[in-house]
């Protein structure tokens, strides 16, 4: 009896206040042991000397919607550089009164991306929908059909150009990459060695050398009188580059396939193309969806390299805004703004890929 009552007593005793709640959390997560306590204090000190000045610069002493004169004599950030030049940064040299067209194209793209997030909607019809959407976006940018004035591609720029280069780049690089990966796995020596040489060559050189090639060497390849515009040439370089990386990702998926799958397909009497189209690729491509999204992210970031061959993508329009004497010297503000755009896009993509990875994991 005595024992029993004692037990009841202890079960009603609450845990000490220092091991639960806010204090308990701080003790287990920040001050467990002398080393961690020291670390926490050091980090807090670093934050203390760096965060308040930044906040003061960015938010307290800053100006937001003024003209350039108001920025001359302030201590804080001059965010005004962004609203004052926003249309140029986003759209580049696209004709001013036609800028609703790239804006609409971008909205279509975002809507399509959000619509395709759900894996339940991944059907053949979605693929066709994407095809239609890409054509509409292209038409909106280029014009030339009744009702839309044509806009020369040399006037394209800003965020639409960045998105165009990455979306069309990936959409065209994916089939090429799959063909290259199949070629690399092939038993035919000529095809296999061609694919291996291509993939290793492209992966061994920086993208910028391909962009140089597209801007200075490619015109020499064409017969006299034929010219291809600079954006298309850069686009081809990006496709060639991305395809090699996709090929390696897809190869990973192909290698993960069980040998029994091939044998079963053979036993059913399917030929090579049927085996690949109906049995192998649907499974292999599913495995490689998450790494493909990381390829998409790096392709998106890599489009910024077209700055070097003087295409007016998002980064270049920002740079040329900063070379305007009125707004010279506010690089930090402008670059932080552009970095934010890139960050938001990439963050969504990488989060999505992580989620997808988890979902696909439970399926297997």
């Amino acid at each position, binding site marked *: 009896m005595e024992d029993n009552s004692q037990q009841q007593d202890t079960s009603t005793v609450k845990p000490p206040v220092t091991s639960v709640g806010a204090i308990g959390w701080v003790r287990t997560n920040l001050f467990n042991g002398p080393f961690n306590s020291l670390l926490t204090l050091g*980090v807090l000190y670093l934050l203390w000397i760096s965060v308040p000045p930044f906040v003061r610069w960015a938010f307290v002493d800053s100006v937001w919607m003024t003209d350039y004169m108001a920025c001359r004599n302030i201590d804080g950030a001059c965010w005004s550089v962004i609203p004052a030049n926003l249309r140029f940064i986003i759209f580049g040299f696209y004709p001013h009164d036609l800028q609703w067209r790239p804006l609409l194209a971008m909205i279509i793209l975002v809507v399509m991306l959000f619509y395709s997030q759900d894996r339940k909607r991944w059907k053949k019809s979605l693929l066709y929908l994407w095809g239609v959407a890409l054509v509409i976006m292209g038409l909106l940018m280029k014009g030339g059909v009744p009702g839309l004035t044509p806009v020369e591609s040399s006037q394209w720029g800003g965020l639409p150009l960045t998105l165009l280069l990455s979306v069309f780049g990936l959409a065209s690089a994916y089939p090429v990459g799959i063909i290259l990966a199949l070629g690399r796995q092939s038993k035919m020596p000529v095809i296999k060695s061609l694919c291996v040489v291509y993939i290793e060559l492209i992966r061994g050189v920086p993208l910028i050398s391909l962009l140089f090639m597209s801007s200075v060497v490619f015109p020499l390849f064409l017969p006299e009188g034929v010219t291809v515009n600079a954006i298309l040439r850069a686009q081809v370089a990006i496709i060639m580059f991305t395809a090699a990386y996709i090929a390696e990702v897809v190869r990973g998926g192909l290698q993960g396939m069980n040998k029994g799958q091939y044998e079963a397909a053979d036993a059913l009497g399917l030929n090579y193309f049927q085996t690949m189209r109906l049995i192998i690729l649907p499974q292999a491509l599913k495995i490689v969806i998450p790494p493909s999204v990381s390829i998409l992210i790096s392709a998106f970031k890599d489009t910024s390299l077209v700055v070097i061959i003087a295409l007016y993508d998002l980064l270049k329009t920002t740079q040329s805004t900063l070379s305007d004497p009125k707004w010279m010297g506010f690089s930090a503000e402008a670059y932080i703004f552009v970095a934010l755009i890139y960050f938001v896009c990439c963050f969504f993509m990488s989060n999505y890929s992580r989620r997808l990875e988890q979902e696909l994991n439970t399926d297997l």
Partner: protein
Amino acid sequence: MDNVSSEKTSFFRDPDKLALFYQFVVMVGVGLLAFYLVSNTLANLERQSIATGLGFIDKEASFEIGESLIPYSAADSYGKALLVGVLNTLIVSFIGIVLTVILGTILGVARLSSNWLVSRLSAVYIEVFQDIPVLLQLFFWYAFFYEMLPSPRQALNPFTGLFLCNRGMIFGVPKWHSAHGYMIVAFLVACVIVFFLKRWAKKRQEATGNIFPVFRVALLLFLGLPLAAWLLGGAPTEMNAPRLSGFNFKGGVSVSPEFAALLLGLVLYTAAFVAEVVRAGIQAVSKGQTEAALSIGLKPGQVLNLVILPQSLRVIIPPLTSQMLNLTKNSSLAVAIGYPDFVSVAGTTINQTGQAIEGVAMIMIVYLFFSLSTSAFMNWYNKKIKLVER
């Protein structure tokens, strides 16, 4: 059975013949394309009267290069200018790789820290720096040096001997003294002694089971011998410190803003990726390994050295090398901020000679050489540390 195999199969049903046919078609296709491009190119080169071949290598470059490891002037040849470019690429990649591995390891370990603040901060860093294009980061740091830092007269001086201004980073170094030469020799001697010590200790452990504290003795040798040499050489303490004279600093070692911005951008960007690699490598070793090692009586240091590291390095090394290669390839973005790396020098060469094909081919060959030699080393290393299955 014989009957079946000797029956004549139609051409389209015989995989061997079909394979030959496909390969023939692809070969002809590639050959025709190559012929078309080459003939176009030759016609274009002739029409625009562009020279071909590598004859320009010996000609006078007649352009200056901002910074160079070897003596170079505008009167030197294109070949030498390109060599300067290669060396500049190598030096920035080498220093960048060393710093990236250090910073990336710290961040990767911090990401797994039990300290909530440290692990959160590291996660934020990794996410932010991975998701911003490296070129944008380079532009930012370049602007940081040129716009945000003060002129040499008001240079920031975070601690004695280091100055930050819009002319770059200037820091003091010890003035050369013969004792420094002895220190280098002493260090090399320590290396040799440690090498033999390690072999002897291993043999002794295999023979007797006694463990010799190699690490502590080695540390003592590495630090102690150079220190002794320094003391014997007269303990020189004179510094070659930077001094402001006129509008710029004199003395000390200065790092140009371009170099500093390139290095900073590349290291901060790549370290975020290396941190993820390191984290994955550490997490790949299951907790049971640590517990098992501790339960057979190994000390924590031994657990790390003999059990954890050999296993996690096997996971870490391959992606780590590819990150190092990425850093080397990304160093070609130097051309955008005016640091004279190989791509930038080759670009100038292309502009001056008009020989675009040779120039781009050289860029590709140099980077291919870097990648192929790295992957050759990787394959060798992978074979060496591969699990030996019995």
